[in-house]
Protein backbone atom coordinates (compact mmCIF):
# COMPACT_ATOMS: atom_id res chain seq x y z
CA UNK A 1 0.00 0.00 0.00
CA UNK A 2 1.08 3.58 -0.45
CA UNK A 3 1.72 5.76 2.56
CA UNK A 4 -0.25 8.93 3.03
CA UNK A 5 1.34 11.77 1.10
CA UNK A 6 2.49 14.70 3.14
CA UNK A 7 1.30 18.07 1.78
CA UNK A 8 3.76 20.89 2.07
CA UNK A 9 2.74 24.51 2.58
CA UNK A 10 1.70 25.98 -0.75
CA UNK A 11 1.07 22.59 -2.39
CA UNK A 12 -2.25 21.90 -3.97
CA UNK A 13 -4.13 19.09 -2.30
CA UNK A 14 -5.12 16.49 -4.78
CA UNK A 15 -8.36 14.61 -4.30
CA UNK A 16 -6.57 11.28 -4.19
CA UNK A 17 -4.55 12.46 -1.22
CA UNK A 18 -7.65 13.27 0.77
CA UNK A 19 -9.58 10.25 -0.46
CA UNK A 20 -6.87 7.87 0.70
CA UNK A 21 -7.22 9.28 4.21
CA UNK A 22 -10.98 8.98 4.03
CA UNK A 23 -10.75 5.52 2.52
CA UNK A 24 -8.32 4.40 5.20
CA UNK A 25 -10.61 5.58 7.95
CA UNK A 26 -13.58 3.91 6.26
CA UNK A 27 -11.73 0.58 5.96
CA UNK A 28 -11.52 0.56 2.18
CA UNK A 29 -9.38 -2.35 1.01
CA UNK A 30 -5.84 -1.32 0.12
CA UNK A 31 -6.26 2.20 1.44
CA UNK A 32 -5.09 1.67 5.01
CA UNK A 33 -1.63 2.26 6.36
CA UNK A 34 -0.10 1.19 9.66
CA UNK A 35 -0.96 3.42 12.58
CA UNK A 36 2.29 4.19 14.35
CA UNK A 37 1.73 6.08 17.56
CA UNK A 38 5.28 5.40 18.65
CA UNK A 39 6.49 8.89 19.24
CA UNK A 40 3.90 10.16 21.68
CA UNK A 41 5.43 11.93 24.65
CA UNK A 42 2.57 12.60 27.01
CA UNK A 43 2.62 11.87 30.74
CA UNK A 44 -1.13 12.27 31.13
CA UNK A 45 -2.83 10.63 28.19
CA UNK A 46 -2.67 7.17 26.64
CA UNK A 47 -1.18 6.99 23.21
CA UNK A 48 -4.30 5.27 21.97
CA UNK A 49 -7.68 5.47 23.66
CA UNK A 50 -10.76 4.01 22.11
CA UNK A 51 -14.21 4.38 23.57
CA UNK A 52 -17.55 3.43 22.11
CA UNK A 53 -20.27 5.38 23.86
CA UNK A 54 -22.93 2.95 22.73
CA UNK A 55 -23.88 1.54 26.10
CA UNK A 56 -25.32 -1.84 25.20
CA UNK A 57 -22.24 -3.43 23.66
CA UNK A 58 -19.41 -0.97 24.24
CA UNK A 59 -17.57 -2.38 21.27
CA UNK A 60 -14.24 -0.67 21.64
CA UNK A 61 -11.68 -2.80 19.86
CA UNK A 62 -11.65 -5.64 17.38
CA UNK A 63 -8.31 -6.93 16.08
CA UNK A 64 -8.37 -9.67 13.51
CA UNK A 65 -5.94 -11.98 11.76
CA UNK A 66 -5.65 -11.84 8.01
CA UNK A 67 -8.15 -14.67 7.78
CA UNK A 68 -10.66 -12.73 9.80
CA UNK A 69 -10.28 -14.82 12.97
CA UNK A 70 -10.00 -13.17 16.34
CA UNK A 71 -6.80 -11.77 17.79
CA UNK A 72 -8.15 -9.28 20.34
CA UNK A 73 -11.67 -8.17 21.03
CA UNK A 74 -12.67 -5.71 23.73
CA UNK A 75 -16.30 -4.99 24.38
CA UNK A 76 -18.92 -5.17 27.07
CA UNK A 77 -18.06 -8.87 27.60
CA UNK A 78 -14.48 -8.08 28.50
CA UNK A 79 -11.38 -8.93 26.54
CA UNK A 80 -11.31 -12.00 24.32
CA UNK A 81 -8.08 -13.28 22.89
CA UNK A 82 -7.39 -15.55 19.97
CA UNK A 83 -5.12 -18.56 20.17
CA UNK A 84 -2.47 -19.17 21.09
CA UNK A 85 -2.06 -16.78 23.98
CA UNK A 86 1.56 -16.46 24.98
CA UNK A 87 2.27 -14.84 28.30
CA UNK A 88 5.57 -14.03 29.90
CA UNK A 89 6.57 -16.78 32.36
CA UNK A 90 5.51 -15.92 35.87
CA UNK A 91 3.35 -13.01 34.75
CA UNK A 92 -0.01 -14.50 35.77
CA UNK A 93 -0.64 -14.27 39.50
CA UNK A 94 -2.68 -17.01 41.11
CA UNK A 95 -5.22 -14.47 42.26
CA UNK A 96 -6.06 -13.83 38.62
CA UNK A 97 -7.75 -17.23 38.46
CA UNK A 98 -11.33 -17.57 39.56
CA UNK A 99 -11.72 -19.85 42.54
CA UNK A 100 -12.46 -23.51 41.75
CA UNK A 101 -12.00 -22.93 38.05
CA UNK A 102 -9.03 -25.23 37.29
CA UNK A 103 -10.41 -28.56 36.10
CA UNK A 104 -8.67 -31.89 36.39
CA UNK A 105 -8.05 -31.95 32.65
CA UNK A 106 -5.92 -28.81 33.02
CA UNK A 107 -3.57 -30.34 35.59
CA UNK A 108 -0.05 -31.37 34.72
CA UNK A 109 1.03 -34.84 35.76
CA UNK A 110 3.37 -33.48 38.42
CA UNK A 111 0.48 -32.15 40.47
CA UNK A 112 0.47 -34.50 43.45
CA UNK A 113 -2.79 -36.40 43.84
CA UNK A 114 -3.96 -39.23 46.03
CA UNK A 115 -3.74 -42.71 44.56
CA UNK A 116 -6.37 -45.37 45.13
CA UNK A 117 -3.92 -48.21 44.57
CA UNK A 118 -2.36 -50.19 47.37
CA UNK A 119 1.40 -50.64 47.10
CA UNK A 120 1.53 -48.76 43.81
CA UNK A 121 5.28 -48.42 44.20
CA UNK A 122 5.83 -52.20 44.48
CA UNK A 123 7.76 -51.59 47.69
CA UNK A 124 6.00 -54.11 49.96
CA UNK A 125 6.48 -57.85 49.34
CA UNK A 126 5.18 -59.57 52.47
CA UNK A 127 4.87 -62.96 50.77
CA UNK A 128 8.51 -63.01 49.74
CA UNK A 129 10.70 -61.64 46.97
CA UNK A 130 10.25 -64.49 44.49
CA UNK A 131 6.55 -65.35 44.49
CA UNK A 132 5.10 -67.91 42.10
CA UNK A 133 3.13 -67.06 39.00
CA UNK A 134 -0.56 -67.54 39.89
CA UNK A 135 -1.35 -65.72 43.07
CA UNK A 136 -0.33 -62.58 44.88
CA UNK A 137 3.19 -61.28 44.33
CA UNK A 138 3.94 -57.83 45.64
CA UNK A 139 1.26 -56.91 48.14
CA UNK A 140 -2.13 -56.55 46.46
CA UNK A 141 -0.70 -57.29 43.01
CA UNK A 142 -2.02 -60.49 41.55
CA UNK A 143 -0.72 -62.69 38.75
CA UNK A 144 -2.19 -65.49 36.69
CA UNK A 145 -0.59 -67.65 34.02
CA UNK A 146 -2.03 -67.87 30.56
CA UNK A 147 -2.11 -71.18 28.72
CA UNK A 148 1.42 -72.59 28.34
CA UNK A 149 2.90 -69.45 29.89
CA UNK A 150 6.24 -69.34 31.67
CA UNK A 151 6.97 -66.12 33.56
CA UNK A 152 9.22 -65.42 36.52
CA UNK A 153 8.28 -62.70 38.98
CA UNK A 154 10.60 -61.09 41.50
CA UNK A 155 11.23 -58.04 43.58
CA UNK A 156 13.97 -56.03 41.88
CA UNK A 157 16.00 -53.29 43.53
CA UNK A 158 18.38 -52.73 40.60
CA UNK A 159 16.16 -51.80 37.68
CA UNK A 160 14.02 -49.36 39.59
CA UNK A 161 12.51 -46.09 38.43
CA UNK A 162 14.12 -42.85 39.61
CA UNK A 163 13.90 -42.56 43.37
CA UNK A 164 12.23 -45.93 43.84
CA UNK A 165 13.27 -48.60 46.32
CA UNK A 166 11.94 -51.60 44.45
CA UNK A 167 10.06 -52.58 41.34
CA UNK A 168 8.51 -55.76 39.98
CA UNK A 169 10.53 -57.69 37.42
CA UNK A 170 8.88 -60.07 34.98
CA UNK A 171 10.97 -62.51 32.97
CA UNK A 172 8.73 -63.68 30.16
CA UNK A 173 10.07 -66.95 28.76
CA UNK A 174 6.69 -67.71 27.23
CA UNK A 175 3.88 -65.13 27.28
CA UNK A 176 1.27 -67.84 26.81
CA UNK A 177 -1.22 -68.54 24.09
CA UNK A 178 -3.77 -66.69 26.19
CA UNK A 179 -2.99 -63.51 28.16
CA UNK A 180 -0.84 -63.87 31.25
CA UNK A 181 -1.73 -61.48 34.01
CA UNK A 182 1.56 -59.99 35.20
CA UNK A 183 0.30 -57.43 37.69
CA UNK A 184 -3.35 -56.92 38.45
CA UNK A 185 -4.98 -55.09 41.30
CA UNK A 186 -8.61 -55.09 42.31
CA UNK A 187 -9.42 -51.75 43.87
CA UNK A 188 -12.19 -51.19 46.35
CA UNK A 189 -14.14 -48.13 45.28
CA UNK A 190 -16.42 -47.65 48.24
CA UNK A 191 -18.38 -44.52 47.48
CA UNK A 192 -16.19 -43.61 44.51
CA UNK A 193 -18.51 -45.14 41.95
CA UNK A 194 -19.27 -44.03 38.43
CA UNK A 195 -16.29 -41.70 38.19
CA UNK A 196 -13.59 -41.22 35.60
CA UNK A 197 -10.25 -42.66 36.62
CA UNK A 198 -6.77 -42.65 35.16
CA UNK A 199 -4.43 -45.52 35.89
CA UNK A 200 -0.75 -45.10 35.09
CA UNK A 201 2.36 -47.25 35.42
CA UNK A 202 6.05 -46.78 34.77
CA UNK A 203 7.40 -49.58 32.59
CA UNK A 204 10.64 -50.41 30.83
CA UNK A 205 11.92 -53.53 29.08
CA UNK A 206 15.32 -55.06 28.50
CA UNK A 207 14.84 -54.30 24.79
CA UNK A 208 12.34 -52.18 22.93
CA UNK A 209 9.10 -54.02 22.33
CA UNK A 210 6.05 -53.40 20.18
CA UNK A 211 2.68 -54.68 21.23
CA UNK A 212 3.72 -57.31 23.74
CA UNK A 213 2.09 -55.80 26.85
CA UNK A 214 -1.40 -54.54 27.45
CA UNK A 215 -3.02 -52.45 30.14
CA UNK A 216 -6.67 -53.33 30.57
CA UNK A 217 -9.25 -52.19 33.09
CA UNK A 218 -12.30 -54.20 34.11
CA UNK A 219 -15.43 -53.18 35.94
CA UNK A 220 -16.75 -54.58 39.20
CA UNK A 221 -17.93 -57.81 37.61
CA UNK A 222 -14.37 -58.59 36.60
CA UNK A 223 -15.33 -59.21 32.98
CA UNK A 224 -16.69 -55.97 31.55
CA UNK A 225 -13.80 -54.23 29.84
CA UNK A 226 -13.67 -50.51 30.50
CA UNK A 227 -10.60 -49.60 28.46
CA UNK A 228 -7.38 -51.09 27.16
CA UNK A 229 -4.06 -49.94 25.76
CA UNK A 230 -1.45 -52.01 23.95
CA UNK A 231 2.04 -50.81 24.82
CA UNK A 232 5.25 -50.19 22.97
CA UNK A 233 8.02 -50.20 25.54
CA UNK A 234 11.60 -48.97 25.51
CA UNK A 235 14.69 -49.62 27.57
CA UNK A 236 14.04 -46.55 29.72
CA UNK A 237 11.08 -46.01 31.97
CA UNK A 238 8.05 -44.51 30.28
CA UNK A 239 4.67 -43.62 31.73
CA UNK A 240 1.70 -45.44 30.26
CA UNK A 241 -1.80 -44.45 31.25
CA UNK A 242 -5.35 -45.55 30.74
CA UNK A 243 -8.48 -43.48 31.39
CA UNK A 244 -11.87 -45.07 31.97
CA UNK A 245 -15.17 -44.58 33.77
CA UNK A 246 -16.46 -47.18 36.19
CA UNK A 247 -20.05 -48.28 36.42
CA UNK A 248 -22.23 -46.41 38.85
CA UNK A 249 -23.35 -49.63 40.50
CA UNK A 250 -20.06 -51.48 40.95
CA UNK A 251 -17.98 -51.41 44.10
CA UNK A 252 -14.59 -52.16 42.62
CA UNK A 253 -12.48 -52.01 39.49
CA UNK A 254 -9.58 -54.10 38.33
CA UNK A 255 -6.40 -52.74 36.74
CA UNK A 256 -4.48 -55.42 34.87
CA UNK A 257 -1.13 -55.43 33.10
CA UNK A 258 -0.88 -58.55 31.00
CA UNK A 259 0.92 -60.10 28.08
CA UNK A 260 -0.35 -60.13 24.54
CA UNK A 261 -0.65 -63.82 23.57
CA UNK A 262 2.31 -65.26 21.71
CA UNK A 263 4.20 -61.95 21.78
CA UNK A 264 7.44 -61.04 23.50
CA UNK A 265 9.02 -64.35 24.45
CA UNK A 266 12.41 -63.85 26.03
CA UNK A 267 11.81 -60.27 27.11
CA UNK A 268 12.03 -58.90 30.62
CA UNK A 269 9.85 -56.08 31.84
CA UNK A 270 10.18 -53.85 34.88
CA UNK A 271 7.12 -52.20 36.37
CA UNK A 272 7.16 -49.48 38.99
CA UNK A 273 5.29 -46.54 40.46
CA UNK A 274 1.68 -47.10 39.51
CA UNK A 275 -1.05 -44.60 40.26
CA UNK A 276 -4.83 -44.66 40.05
CA UNK A 277 -6.36 -41.23 40.40
CA UNK A 278 -9.77 -39.72 39.94
CA UNK A 279 -9.90 -37.63 36.79
CA UNK A 280 -8.85 -37.80 33.19
CA UNK A 281 -5.23 -36.78 33.72
CA UNK A 282 -2.52 -39.15 34.84
CA UNK A 283 -0.57 -38.20 37.93
CA UNK A 284 3.11 -38.75 38.59
CA UNK A 285 3.81 -41.26 41.34
CA UNK A 286 3.68 -39.80 44.81
CA UNK A 287 5.21 -42.14 47.40
CA UNK A 288 3.33 -42.69 50.60
CA UNK A 289 4.96 -42.55 53.99
CA UNK A 290 6.20 -46.11 54.63
CA UNK A 291 3.88 -46.45 57.60
CA UNK A 292 0.88 -45.56 55.49
CA UNK A 293 2.06 -47.75 52.62
CA UNK A 294 2.33 -50.77 54.89
CA UNK A 295 -0.88 -49.99 56.75
CA UNK A 296 -2.81 -50.04 53.50
CA UNK A 297 -1.26 -53.43 52.64
CA UNK A 298 -2.16 -54.83 56.06
CA UNK A 299 -5.84 -54.34 55.31
CA UNK A 300 -5.47 -57.34 52.99
CA UNK A 301 -2.59 -59.44 54.28
CA UNK A 302 -0.52 -59.67 57.40
CA UNK A 303 1.66 -62.16 59.22
CA UNK A 304 2.16 -62.67 62.92
CA UNK A 305 4.90 -64.64 64.61
CA UNK A 306 7.74 -65.84 62.46
CA UNK A 307 10.38 -65.67 65.17
CA UNK A 308 11.01 -67.37 68.49
CA UNK A 309 8.38 -66.58 71.13
CA UNK A 310 6.73 -63.84 69.13
CA UNK A 311 3.46 -65.61 69.91
CA UNK A 312 3.57 -67.34 73.29
CA UNK A 313 0.61 -68.48 75.33
CA UNK A 314 1.13 -70.01 78.78
CA UNK A 315 -1.77 -70.67 81.13
CA UNK A 316 -3.21 -73.02 83.72
CA UNK A 317 -5.90 -75.59 83.05
CA UNK A 318 -8.03 -76.30 86.07
CA UNK A 319 -9.93 -79.13 84.45
CA UNK A 320 -9.55 -81.61 81.65
CA UNK A 321 -11.26 -81.47 78.26
CA UNK A 322 -11.63 -77.71 78.43
CA UNK A 323 -10.94 -75.87 75.21
CA UNK A 324 -8.95 -72.72 75.84
CA UNK A 325 -8.81 -69.66 73.64
CA UNK A 326 -6.16 -67.04 73.07
CA UNK A 327 -7.23 -63.85 71.31
CA UNK A 328 -5.42 -62.60 68.23
CA UNK A 329 -5.95 -58.96 67.28
CA UNK A 330 -4.99 -58.00 63.74
CA UNK A 331 -2.77 -55.05 63.00
CA UNK A 332 -5.41 -53.75 60.60
CA UNK A 333 -9.07 -54.46 60.04
CA UNK A 334 -9.57 -56.58 56.97
CA UNK A 335 -11.58 -55.78 53.86
CA UNK A 336 -13.62 -58.97 54.18
CA UNK A 337 -13.68 -61.90 56.60
CA UNK A 338 -10.16 -63.29 56.19
CA UNK A 339 -8.66 -66.70 55.65
CA UNK A 340 -6.46 -67.72 58.59
CA UNK A 341 -3.44 -69.95 58.13
CA UNK A 342 -1.31 -71.47 60.85
CA UNK A 343 2.07 -72.51 59.54
CA UNK A 344 4.62 -74.82 61.11
CA UNK A 345 4.69 -77.20 64.03
CA UNK A 346 4.67 -75.04 67.11
CA UNK A 347 6.25 -75.99 70.40
CA UNK A 348 3.57 -77.20 72.79
CA UNK A 349 3.53 -78.34 76.37
CA UNK A 350 0.53 -79.97 78.00
CA UNK A 351 -1.70 -79.39 74.99
CA UNK A 352 -2.08 -80.08 71.30
CA UNK A 353 -1.24 -77.82 68.41
CA UNK A 354 -3.26 -74.61 68.55
CA UNK A 355 -6.03 -74.11 66.01
CA UNK A 356 -6.34 -70.69 64.37
CA UNK A 357 -10.01 -69.98 63.72
CA UNK A 358 -13.11 -67.84 64.18
CA UNK A 359 -12.01 -64.83 62.19
CA UNK A 360 -13.82 -61.52 62.23
CA UNK A 361 -12.64 -58.45 60.39
CA UNK A 362 -10.35 -57.55 63.25
CA UNK A 363 -9.79 -60.59 65.45
CA UNK A 364 -9.41 -64.33 65.57
CA UNK A 365 -8.47 -66.88 68.19
CA UNK A 366 -5.98 -69.62 68.88
CA UNK A 367 -7.65 -72.53 70.55
CA UNK A 368 -6.28 -75.69 72.10
CA UNK A 369 -7.39 -78.36 74.52
CA UNK A 370 -4.96 -79.12 77.36
CA UNK A 371 -4.21 -82.77 77.84
CA UNK A 372 -4.66 -82.54 81.58
CA UNK A 373 -4.83 -80.12 84.44
CA UNK A 374 -1.96 -77.80 85.19
CA UNK A 375 0.22 -75.46 83.22
CA UNK A 376 0.13 -75.72 79.44
CA UNK A 377 1.80 -73.61 76.79
CA UNK A 378 2.28 -73.20 73.09
CA UNK A 379 4.56 -70.82 71.23
CA UNK A 380 6.39 -70.14 67.97
CA UNK A 381 9.89 -71.58 68.30
CA UNK A 382 11.46 -70.03 65.19
CA UNK A 383 10.89 -68.45 61.79
CA UNK A 384 9.10 -71.49 60.42
CA UNK A 385 6.12 -70.96 62.69
CA UNK A 386 3.75 -68.08 62.07
CA UNK A 387 0.21 -67.03 61.22
CA UNK A 388 -1.09 -65.38 58.09
CA UNK A 389 -4.32 -63.45 57.79
CA UNK A 390 -5.51 -62.71 54.28
CA UNK A 391 -8.60 -61.02 52.89
CA UNK A 392 -8.94 -60.37 49.18
CA UNK A 393 -12.15 -58.57 48.22
Amino acid at each position, binding site marked *: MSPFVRVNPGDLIQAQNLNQVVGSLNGTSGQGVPVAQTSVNDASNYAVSVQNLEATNSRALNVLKSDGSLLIRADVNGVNLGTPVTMVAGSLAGTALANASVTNAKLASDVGRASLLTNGGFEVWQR*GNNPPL*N*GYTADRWNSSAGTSASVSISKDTTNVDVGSGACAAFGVSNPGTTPTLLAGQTVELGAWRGLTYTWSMRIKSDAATTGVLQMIAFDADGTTQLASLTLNTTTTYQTYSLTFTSAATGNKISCNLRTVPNQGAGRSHYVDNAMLVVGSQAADYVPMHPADDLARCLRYYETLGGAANTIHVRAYAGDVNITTFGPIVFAAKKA*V*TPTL*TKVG*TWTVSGCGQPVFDSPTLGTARLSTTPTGTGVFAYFTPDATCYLTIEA*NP
Partner: protein
Amino acid sequence: MSVYVTDFSASPWEVVHDDARGGAHEGTVDPTSIVHTTNMDGSENHDFLVVVCPVCQASSTHPVGGGAQAASVQQMFVLHAQTNGCPCGQVAATDPDALAESHVRLQVNRQDGPGRWQLS
Protein backbone atom coordinates in the same frame (compact mmCIF):
# COMPACT_ATOMS: atom_id res chain seq x y z
CA MET B 1 -2.80 -66.64 49.66
CA SER B 2 -3.23 -69.68 51.88
CA VAL B 3 -3.78 -73.39 51.42
CA TYR B 4 -6.61 -73.66 48.93
CA VAL B 5 -8.05 -76.02 46.32
CA THR B 6 -7.07 -75.38 42.71
CA ASP B 7 -8.77 -78.32 41.03
CA PHE B 8 -12.03 -79.93 42.12
CA SER B 9 -12.43 -82.06 38.98
CA ALA B 10 -11.30 -85.31 40.52
CA SER B 11 -10.74 -86.78 43.95
CA PRO B 12 -8.36 -86.21 45.63
CA TRP B 13 -8.48 -82.48 45.08
CA GLU B 14 -5.38 -80.55 44.09
CA VAL B 15 -4.31 -77.86 46.53
CA VAL B 16 -1.59 -75.23 46.61
CA HIS B 17 0.05 -73.42 49.48
CA ASP B 18 1.10 -70.40 47.52
CA ASP B 19 2.58 -68.10 50.12
CA ALA B 20 4.67 -70.70 51.91
CA ARG B 21 8.03 -69.31 52.88
CA GLY B 22 10.68 -70.87 50.72
CA GLY B 23 8.31 -71.14 47.81
CA ALA B 24 4.85 -72.33 46.95
CA HIS B 25 4.13 -76.05 46.98
CA GLU B 26 1.32 -78.24 45.77
CA GLY B 27 -0.27 -81.54 46.67
CA THR B 28 -3.56 -83.33 46.91
CA VAL B 29 -6.07 -83.73 49.72
CA ASP B 30 -8.94 -86.11 50.26
CA PRO B 31 -12.13 -84.00 50.25
CA THR B 32 -13.26 -85.82 53.38
CA SER B 33 -10.27 -84.35 55.25
CA ILE B 34 -11.71 -80.86 54.80
CA VAL B 35 -13.85 -80.23 57.87
CA HIS B 36 -15.68 -77.43 59.60
CA THR B 37 -14.23 -75.72 62.64
CA THR B 38 -15.75 -76.49 66.00
CA ASN B 39 -17.82 -74.18 68.15
CA MET B 40 -17.30 -73.90 71.89
CA ASP B 41 -20.18 -76.32 72.44
CA GLY B 42 -18.53 -78.90 70.23
CA SER B 43 -20.84 -78.44 67.27
CA GLU B 44 -19.55 -77.76 63.78
CA ASN B 45 -19.47 -74.20 62.51
CA HIS B 46 -20.84 -74.05 58.96
CA ASP B 47 -19.15 -70.71 58.30
CA PHE B 48 -15.62 -72.12 58.21
CA LEU B 49 -13.75 -75.00 56.58
CA VAL B 50 -10.17 -76.07 57.32
CA VAL B 51 -7.77 -77.23 54.62
CA VAL B 52 -4.46 -78.77 55.69
CA CYS B 53 -1.43 -78.52 53.40
CA PRO B 54 -0.31 -82.06 52.50
CA VAL B 55 3.31 -80.88 52.26
CA CYS B 56 3.95 -78.75 55.35
CA GLN B 57 0.81 -79.35 57.42
CA ALA B 58 -0.04 -75.68 57.51
CA SER B 59 -3.77 -75.30 58.05
CA SER B 60 -5.97 -72.64 56.51
CA THR B 61 -9.30 -71.78 58.03
CA HIS B 62 -11.41 -70.41 55.20
CA PRO B 63 -14.53 -68.32 55.81
CA VAL B 64 -17.54 -69.05 53.64
CA GLY B 65 -17.24 -65.59 52.08
CA GLY B 66 -14.00 -66.65 50.49
CA GLY B 67 -11.30 -64.90 52.51
CA ALA B 68 -8.12 -65.04 50.48
CA GLN B 69 -9.53 -66.83 47.45
CA ALA B 70 -13.23 -66.22 47.04
CA ALA B 71 -14.02 -68.31 43.97
CA SER B 72 -12.19 -71.43 45.13
CA VAL B 73 -13.38 -71.22 48.71
CA GLN B 74 -17.02 -70.67 47.82
CA GLN B 75 -16.85 -73.62 45.42
CA MET B 76 -15.38 -75.73 48.19
CA PHE B 77 -18.22 -74.84 50.55
CA VAL B 78 -20.82 -75.66 47.90
CA LEU B 79 -19.29 -79.05 47.12
CA HIS B 80 -18.87 -79.81 50.82
CA ALA B 81 -22.52 -79.02 51.52
CA GLN B 82 -23.70 -80.98 48.51
CA THR B 83 -21.74 -84.02 49.64
CA ASN B 84 -22.18 -83.86 53.39
CA GLY B 85 -25.10 -81.55 53.99
CA CYS B 86 -24.70 -78.60 56.29
CA PRO B 87 -24.19 -79.00 60.04
CA CYS B 88 -26.80 -76.32 60.69
CA GLY B 89 -29.44 -78.79 59.49
CA GLN B 90 -30.80 -76.65 56.68
CA VAL B 91 -29.30 -78.85 53.96
CA ALA B 92 -29.08 -82.63 53.89
CA ALA B 93 -26.65 -84.60 51.79
CA THR B 94 -29.62 -86.03 49.92
CA ASP B 95 -31.06 -82.65 48.99
CA PRO B 96 -30.78 -81.31 45.44
CA ASP B 97 -27.44 -79.67 44.71
CA ALA B 98 -29.08 -76.33 44.05
CA LEU B 99 -30.31 -76.16 47.62
CA ALA B 100 -26.78 -76.49 48.97
CA GLU B 101 -25.58 -73.77 46.64
CA SER B 102 -28.41 -71.46 47.67
CA HIS B 103 -27.62 -72.08 51.30
CA VAL B 104 -23.94 -71.27 50.85
CA ARG B 105 -24.80 -68.15 48.88
CA LEU B 106 -26.97 -67.00 51.74
CA GLN B 107 -24.09 -67.61 54.14
CA VAL B 108 -21.77 -65.59 51.90
CA ASN B 109 -24.18 -62.68 51.78
CA ARG B 110 -24.56 -62.74 55.54
CA GLN B 111 -20.83 -62.81 56.15
CA ASP B 112 -19.39 -60.43 53.56
CA GLY B 113 -22.44 -58.78 52.06
CA PRO B 114 -24.02 -58.80 48.62
CA GLY B 115 -21.58 -58.63 45.77
CA ARG B 116 -19.14 -61.07 47.31
CA TRP B 117 -20.61 -64.13 45.57
CA GLN B 118 -18.18 -65.19 42.85
CA LEU B 119 -19.74 -68.33 41.41
CA SER B 120 -21.94 -68.11 38.36
